[in-house]
């Protein structure tokens, strides 16, 4: 029943812990942003586990990028909608 390898969540926590020194040396405001990045990667642990990549951190980076890109897309939509409406209003 027991597993031989660490689970995806364990991998994630280890990777996060390994950046503790990096995080400590960041400004408080940057620390918050970094925590957000890790939290966003954590939403994709199931997919990371399924991917079973030998270097899990690659998958976590991609997951962060994915959440970043979702935000970019959402902001772009907002801006485009805004630009579209403004001329009509004016």
């Amino acid at each position, binding site marked *: *029943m027991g597993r*031989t390898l660490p689970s995806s969540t364990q991998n994630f926590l280890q990777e996060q812990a390994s950046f503790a020194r990096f995080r400590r040396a960041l400004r408080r405001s940057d620390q918050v942003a970094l925590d*957000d990045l890790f939290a966003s990667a954590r939403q994709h642990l199931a997919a990371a586990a399924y991917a*079973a990549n*030998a270097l899990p951190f690659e998958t976590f980076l991609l997951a962060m990028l994915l959440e970043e890109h979702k*935000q970019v897309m959402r902001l772009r939509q907002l801006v485009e909608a805004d630009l579209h409406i403004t001329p009509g209003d004016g």
Partner: protein
Amino acid sequence: MAELTGWLLDVYAGEQGLTIWLLTDNGERRCLSQTFPVTFFAASQAVRQGLDKLDLPAHGSTSDLRAAWRWLSSQSEPLRLARAERRDLFAGPIPVLSIEVQQPAHLPGLFRRFSAAFPNLTFYDADLPISLRYGAVFGVFPLCRCCVEVQGNQVKTILALDSPWDLDPEYPPLRLLALEPDCNPSHAVPKGIIFSYKDIRYRMPLEPVRALLANLKSILRTYDPDMLLTSWGDTWLLPKLLELSQANPLPLNRDPSALITRKEQRTYYAYGQVIYRGAQVHLAGRWHIDKYNAVMYHDYGLDGIFELARVTGLPVQTVARVSPGTGISSMQIMTALRQGVLVPWRKQQAEAPKNLFELVRADMGGLVYQPTIGLHSNVAEVDFVSMYPSIMSHFNISPETILPGENDPQTGLPLTRPERGLVPTTLQPLLQKRIAIKSQLLCLPKWDPRRKRYQATASAYKWLLVTCFGYLGYKNARFGRIESHEAVTAYGRETLLRAKEAAEDLGFEVLHLYVDGMWIKKPAFATPADFQPLLNEILTRTGLPIALDGVYRWVAFLPSRLDARIPVANRYFGVFQSGEIKVRGIELRRRDTPDFIRETQQQMLNILAKAPDAEHVPNLLPEVQALVHRRLADLKRGRVPPEKLIVRQTLSRELDAYRSPSPAALAARQLADRAAPLRPGQVVRFLYTLGKPGVRAWDLPGEMDCRTIDVARYSTLLERAAETIFQPFMSEPVETKLPLLSGLYMPNKTSLLQEQAAVNWISGTA
């Protein structure tokens, strides 16, 4: 020669052959016997591994078998030795030494000496329960209806008249005597014993002992019960009675020639928990079942135990006390015996070597998503029906059918041999009967007397099926092999992903995936019929049956307590359209939550469940908040009875092994100077109190001063439980909601709520 018809109650090794208890149709309890030689086998390890053709050192080789033959010939037990060929599940037909023991009672002792003298041999069929051997030969099982031909008391033939897979078997009219002490012996010293038989019920003091024993003897003689159903009979009552009656033994056994079997208490670790099993007392000729030492008694009761005895072939007294894992193993042993497959004494199938990449791919569990945090309305929960057992059966996954390292090039899924495997063969009828019972339950009216038994059966089967998967990978399982365990999870992940893809192709939003279940929604989809096309599509794509568990009016997936941005897989609550509430992972589900907190949280949910849909839930929040304020006030004014504040926790280790003692350990220490100190796996009950050590064991003798209860601590627990319920409804702008709850929330919660709002904004759910 006479013919008897009735129910088979018990089979065990007697002084001569087997002792068989039959309850006949005219109400007689007949003790019969039957000659029944039993056979076990020995093989050389080299032969089993196909290494006999290599030049190997002498040990574990065929010369060992010749020495074994000589050794066995010199033993006092009557034996019949022969060379034979039998089928090993993995290695195929192998030459073995067959050892037929004329008296089944001789086998355990002989085998103990034999295996110690020849440790290098491989043994088969050496430690099988006699009831399984008997069942494999004659097709009978405990509690079956059978027809027996007897000469005097000797059984000549026996024939089963029903099958374990019958939905409504005819049960024997058993005489049941209930015995219990007048209090829980691990909490206080009992003063008397309460007897009940049908409508008769009376209490007798423990002192004077002579009167007690005389009465008990006459009760046993008069009623001659088939079963003693006791409370704490294994751990206290029967050992106590045996101790008191040493000089003048009680007729507890119905079979005077047999001994009472006693087993030691033990503690072990399974499924991430420390489990305690009390000592056991087994009787001969009648059954003894201790309600508090029977596994899952609270779940499926006597009905479940009888049903398990019928399908596993284990004696009633045994099956009541063993884990479902032992039950499913017994069924596999029965399949093996019937198919003429050798049952290894110890498991031998080691994991095949894998490279790192293969290991990374294979060593994975079920697919568990992080749900989309927050409140959702009109969500359907669909679950695969007994997913893992269905996979084993549908894809023929069994330890011997797996081809290690061979995967389907297209799907990457493990390949299996075409011959039907041992595990799927065992599972198939169990799965079918469970599905048949579940569908019966759906159409039976609420008052139908069969409901209770069907529910018990479904529940007992559920545990057999669940552990069947675990045992595929369990290191001590006789028919286990890690590759087959991994294959099941691989198919499980594939199945769930195909279901997800089907849902997305049909335009559903997938909120959560959890091993065998899926939570989905789609605008304007709210009735069960709306989801039927999806269920059909999933069945087509996966080949496995899937069912709609229900449509939630609303469901809330909760975030982690530590970080509101992080979703937790199994922490949610919601209300189905039927009004039924489903909760997972919150306080009221935890076993250590005091009743006061659990009841309050349940009442909060009951209020919210009145809302017809998600939009109306916020209107009910003031009512919920008022309830919480009332309950907090009750607590502060001492209006909550102390027994509602009891915390129950399981001890995880020996008391000396705690480095910084938990509250449970501190409470257990207060009880440590009693006669029977608590063991790991046992539950300790305590209250939080003011001052050192902060707890008071509930079972300490003497009156408790209610003024010492740590009200602040219980208030915090209550506030936390309330917060869990309020949390999903707080994602709107913080200012508008806070005044409503200002009395309840501590200032530092604001930051958490702002964070939640920010997360919702980022994830687009705001």
